[in-house]
C-alpha cells in the first residue's frame, strides 16, 4: 500500500507540477460553467412562460431540466479531457526510459498501475469538486431534490473512473502520447454512442448493445436512479481496463 501511495504522490506532483492538470481542469470548468449557464437561462425562460400557464408550471422540474442534461453535457467534456489526462501515464515512462526504473524496483506491476490510476482519479475529483459551486447556487435560489443530484455526481465519478481505466490501457500500448489519446477518445466515443446501433439491431443484439453502451447506465444515474446493474457495469469496465493494462505490461517482458 505504501508503494501505491508513493507512486500516486509522484503522479499527482507530475500533474500539478506541470501545466497539464491546470489546463485540463480550466477547460473542463469553463465548458461546464457555460453549459450550466445555458441550461439555467433556458430553465428560467421556461419558468417565465409557465407563470402564464399553471398547468405547465407543474411540469417544471429543475432536476429534470437542469441537472440531468448538465450531467450529460459534463460526461461529454470528460470524454474530451480524460484522454488528455491519461495519455502520459504509461506512455511517457516508456518514452523517457523511466519504466526501466519502475519495473526493476521491488514494486509490483499491480501497485504501479493502481498508483497511477488513483492519481488520475484524484485529478478527476479535483476537477468535479468546483462544479459544486454551481450546484450550491441552484440550491440557494431554487429547490432541487438533493438525492438525484448526488447520484448524478456519483454517475460522473463512476463514468470518469471507467474512462481513466480505458485511457491507462491505451497508454500502456504505446510510447506515443498522441496515439494513446486518440485511441482512448475513439474508444470512449464509440462506447458512448453504441446504443444508437441498438435502435436498428434486433433481438438479442439490441439488449447487448444497450448494455455495453455507456449511455443507458449513465442516463439512469443522472435521473437519480441507483441500480446495482449500473454500478457493476462501471466497476467491471474499470476493472477490465486495469486488468488489460496489467496483461500488456506483463506480456511485454516475455516478448
Amino acid at each position, binding site marked *: 500500500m*505504501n*508503494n501505491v501511495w*508513493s*507512486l500516486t504522490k*509522484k503522479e499527482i*506532483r*507530475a500533474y500539478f*507540477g*506541470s501545466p497539464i492538470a491546470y489546463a485540463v481542469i480550466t477547460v473542463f470548468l469553463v465548458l461546464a460553467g457555460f453549459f450550466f449557464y445555458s441550461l439555467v437561462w433556458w430553465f428560467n425562460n421556461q419558468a417565465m412562460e409557465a407563470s402564464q400557464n399553471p398547468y405547465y408550471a407543474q411540469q417544471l422540474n429543475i432536476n429534470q431540466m437542469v441537472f440531468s442534461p448538465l450531467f450529460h453535457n459534463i460526461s461529454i467534456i470528460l470524454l474530451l479531457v480524460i484522454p488528455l489526462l491519461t495519455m502520459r501515464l504509461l506512455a511517457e515512462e516508456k518514452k*523517457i*526510459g*523511466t*519504466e*526501466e*526504473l*519502475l*519495473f*526493476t*524496483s*521491488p*514494486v*509490483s506491476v499491480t501497485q504501479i498501475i493502481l498508483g497511477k490510476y488513483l492519481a488520475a482519479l484524484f485529478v478527476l475529483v479535483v476537477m468535479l469538486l468546483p462544479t459544486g459551486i454551481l450546484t450550491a447556487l441552484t440550491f440557494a435560489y431554487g429547490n432541487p431534490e438533493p438525492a438525484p443530484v448526488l447520484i448524478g455526481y456519483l454517475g460522473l465519478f463512476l463514468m470518469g473512473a471507467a474512462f481513466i481505466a480505458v485511457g491507462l490501457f491505451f497508454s500502456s500500448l504505446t510510447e506515443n502520447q498522441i496515439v494513446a489519446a486518440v485511441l482512448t477518445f475513439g474508444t470512449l466515443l464509440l462506447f458512448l454512442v453504441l446504443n444508437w446501433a441498438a435502435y436498428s439491431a434486433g433481438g438479442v443484439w439490441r439488449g447487448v448493445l444497450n448494455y455495453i453502451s455507456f449511455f443507458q447506465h449513465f442516463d439512469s444515474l443522472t435521473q437519480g436512479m441507483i441500480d446495482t446493474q449500473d454500478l457493476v457495469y462501471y466497476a467491471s469496465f474499470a476493472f477490465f481496463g486495469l486488468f488489460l493494462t496489467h496483461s500488456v505490461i506483463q506480456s511485454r*517482458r*516475455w*516478448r
Partner: protein
Amino acid sequence: MIVVDHLTKKYGSLTAVRDLSFRVEEGQVWGLLGPNAAGKTTTMRILTGYLAATEGRASVGPYDVFEQPDEVKKIIGYLPETVPLYPDMTVAGYLRFVAEIKQVPPAKRPGAVEEAVRVAGLESVRGRLIKNISRGFKQRVGVAQALIHDPQVLILDEPTIGLDPAQIIEIRSLIRSLKKKHTIILSTHILQEVTQTCDGAVIINEGRLMASGSLEGLTASFEDRDGVVLKLRRASTEAASLFKKVPGVESVERTGNEYRLEWTKGRPDLRDDITRLIVDKDLGLLEMRPAGLSIEDLYLKVVSGGPVQ
C-alpha cells in the same frame, strides 16, 4: 555473487543472447565487454528482472532472478543505458522518490538521500530541476539512484557514455571507490574502462560468450604467444604467403601494408629469419615492432573471429 547459467534470450526470430554463462565473485568489478548490439544490455535487463529470459537461469546473491524477482530487485542497484530520470523533478525530490520505491524504510530515507548526494557529488545541484542540469550531472544522478538503497550488487549499463574525458575519469574513480562495498557489473565497449576499473571481464559478441575471466587470466592466455607487426613499402599478397613459409610462423594477417605474424613463444626468435626474407625479396621494410598481445588484441580477436578458450 552473480551467476549466469546458460542464458538465452530471443526477440522473435532474433537471438540477442545465446547460451551465455559466467560468474562474478563478491566484491569485484567486472566488465561486460562487447561491440554495440552484442547483447550486453539484454543480459543486464535479464539480471535486473526487467526482461524474462527465454532459457537458462541466473542468480544474484542467494536469490534466483526468475523465482524470487522481488528479493533480487531489493539487492540490485541498476543504472540503465538511458538514465531513468523525470525531467520535472528536482534532484533531491527524485532521489526521495527512488528511495521510497526501493523500499528504504521511512526513517532512513533522508539519510539515504544525503549519502547518495554526497557519494555522487551532487551537492551543488540537489535543488535544481533535472531537466536543467548538465549531461554529466544527469549521469551522476543515475549513479546516485542506483546506490540509494545501498544494494549489494550494482549493475551499470554504459556508465560513462556521453561524458567528457574529465567526467569519465570522475565516474571511473567513483566506481573504483564503490568496489569495496558492492559487487559491480558494468557494460562498456571501451577497453580502457575495463583495464582501468575492472578485476575481470566477460567478452561477448553477437550474444555469445567469447572469453571470460580475471584480467590476468585473460591476458595470460596469450602469454605463450609471440609476434611482430611489419609495415612494408611494397606490400602484396605474395609477401604474405612468403611469410607463411618461414618455418615456425603460425599465422599471418594482413591489413593494408601491415602484416601481423605470430608464433609460439620459446622457439628460437624468428625475427632474424623474417628480416632476412624481407631484405632478400626487397619488400622495403618501413617498420617492425613487437605485437603487443594485450586485452585489446584479445578483444579485437574475439570480436572479429571465434571464441578463445
